[in-house]
């Protein structure tokens, strides 16, 4: 399967899920779409060594490894990851964290505020705006930790691995995040009991 088929599969069948994931990270639908598109383009652009292109990589043109290296240092040509969606999700996470740390990365994206744009039209679930809003008070790394832990359902070790940091650091992010979110989470149980799925 060539990159075009990969792209089509991911975009058409998993695009919504990927954007949803990105949305939990950045809190803005349009930016989430941009994150996913950038991740998909990066992913497919790097599949130089796959399928029909394996021969071409061997002909001497540059092959870019999927681990983020540029391939110019004699590393092995790129191979397709076993789980493309997981790989794209990791790229979305990296783009999100990298983009926020070096904010110019997203300089061409018009600023949009998440809270006003929250839309849950068809999910059947009512999410309180104050929780969504409270998420915006988290730092990007705190928010990423929360999303990976409570949305992606990862263990602390997995979160740490995904973010390239230590488990202790993740616990600190989560601790700080939960402290920030405490006010909106604690009284919410009873108030919204009937609204939950």
């Amino acid at each position, binding site marked *: 399967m060539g990159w*075009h088929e990969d*792209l089509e599969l991911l*975009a*058409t069948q998993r*695009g919504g899920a*990927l954007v*949803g994931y990105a949305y*939990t990270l950045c*809190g803005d*639908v349009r930016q989430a*779409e941009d994150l*996913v*598109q950038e991740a998909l*383009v990066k992913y497919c*652009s790097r599949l*130089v060594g796959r399928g*029909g292109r394996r*021969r*071409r990589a*061997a002909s*001497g*043109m*540059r092959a870019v490894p999927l681990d983020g290296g540029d391939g*110019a240092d004699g590393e092995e040509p790129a191979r397709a990851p076993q789980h493309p969606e997981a790989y794209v999700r990791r790229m979305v996470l990296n783009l999100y964290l990298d983009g*926020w*740390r*070096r*904010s110019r990365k*997203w300089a*061409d*994206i*018009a*600023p949009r*505020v998440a809270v006003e744009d*929250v*839309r*849950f039209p*068809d999910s059947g*679930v*009512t*999410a309180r705006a104050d*929780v*969504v809003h409270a998420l915006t008070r988290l*730092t990007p790394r705190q928010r990423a930790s*929360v999303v990976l*832990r*409570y*949305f992606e*359902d990862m*263990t602390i*070790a997995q979160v740490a691995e995904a973010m*390239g*940091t230590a488990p202790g650091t993740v*616990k600190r992010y989560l601790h700080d995040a*939960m402290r920030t979110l*405490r006010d909106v*989470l*604690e009284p919410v*149980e009873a108030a919204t009991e009937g609204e*939950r799925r």
Partner: protein
Amino acid sequence: MNQHDGRDQDHGWVDPAGTDFLAQTLGAMAGGVDPASPTGPAAVMPMMSKRVRRRRTAKVGGLGGGALALVGALVLGAGQLAPAAPDQSELLPGTSSSTPTSSPVKADAPDFKVKDGYQPPWLDWSDLTCGMPVADLETTAPGWSVAPAGDIYARTTDLGDKPSTSWRMAAAIEEGPGPGALGSSLALVWSQDGKVVDFGPDVFADPGRPDPVPLISSDPAAYLEAHGAEASTCAPTRTGADPVYEARLPEGDYDVRVVGFPHDGSLPDGSGELATVVSEPVSVHIDAAGAHSPVGTRGGESTIESPEPLPGEISRFELDRSTEWVTASMTHRRHLPAPAVAATARCESTDPTDTVPFEVVEESTGQAFRSGEVVCDGTESVLPFGAPGISGGAVDLQVPFGQTVPDGVAWFSVVLASSGSADDLDPAGDCSASGLDVADDPLGSPSDAATDTADAILDAALACDSGDLIELATASGAELMLPLEAPEDTFALPETAALPYRTLAALLSGTTGALLTGQTDDGEPQPVVWPRVALEEYADSDEAWQEVVDAGLLTAEEAAAQRANTMYGYQGMSLSISEDGTWSGYGGTGAFPRQ
């Protein structure tokens, strides 16, 4: 839905109450995204496919940052030309201007008002916010310290269009123990009445770029230059991910701290968690003439006044310590090339035997290419330096690293100007292809459509038609240079130091295009690449190598050296056009490992 029971890798972490609701909220957010969004991945599949193809074509068709620095030398083919820096593209040649530029107040600048609680986006990892008590701005990086090491000075670019001024100050830093490092520039953080009013520029915006050595310093060991923003980053006129800062700090007295953000080196990629290192404050006064450090016991009376702009003036550095406030500034008025340059220097000191050494430095690399010394007896000295020996770009004038200005010096200035006639300043006018005597038809390519596009590009380049080139590149979505540039930047006139007009003309009139096969799916157009020697297929072709030499893209020596490089081969500029005539890329050839 998200249950965490039974985990064995949670390192003692116990989820607090409320996390189920948090999980539900996140799930609702994700589930609420419209999968049929008109701007979602499925809807923009064709656009993404095009981007992928373009990137892949650009990668294999000749774009890459590795050889970008060779542009100037490649095109002119002269041994004396030094590498052009990647960021020189924004340093366009200009004309002399006498417009005063040091005023911190612009006529059209908005009113200054600190936005309390606002956090510039590059500081989102921290708890630093505008308006915060400056007493809370503390060093959090263990073992790190930083100290101001000189007077504040202005860096002004005044190329005849829109002058811009930012502030700099020398700084000395002591790194802490461990693997941590400073991966970004130092910032000048301004406070007034105990509140932070300016966090300085986004020091993470240009990671990896080395700081230039400060132009002046009071500490011979200070080797870093802290950066102050042109406009306060605590008074945004637009917030969000792409903020706009236009309001300058008003006149008044401020405390200025040098602040750095080292990381602790804890991450596998060598980066890490960011922390803060903060210096003690120094006083800075802002008035209509700019920002000033106190003179203190230095300086004295001076009879010298700032000289009028010289014909062909390139750069000037001035240090005035004749009042209670130091005024120091570095101003770029035009960029090289110039056939010959001369420095006009004056110095006046309470001790007329004092001397001040200075260097003429390529701003982009920090490399000094001329030096001089002026005696502080008030007389004017002119030092003819001859051919500058660098291809282009901005030139700094500075006191050499490790040396300081004697305390008694009240005035020191050095002005670098072209010593040739005005007609010599830019022999090719504003465009390097002007008057170029080359064939006006491309040498040819395997694709008629690509040849037609090449013909149009060549015609536009030879005609120095910026509009046509911009239109052609924009219409095709061509990726230009690395880092990527907008067509308006690449083909701006006056021309950038990369001389794209002459390079395009040389590529298309002097080299042959060749089809790069195997890089797109069956049936999709393949890229045609100029020069063909960039392709593996022609890497050992005598004729292909001779073409780039004859076209002036490489000297014979450079060609021989690159040909002998079995890893990368040709590393000069190249251009790619798809078989269907779509201009896909133009830039330096990247790392092309040869098998």
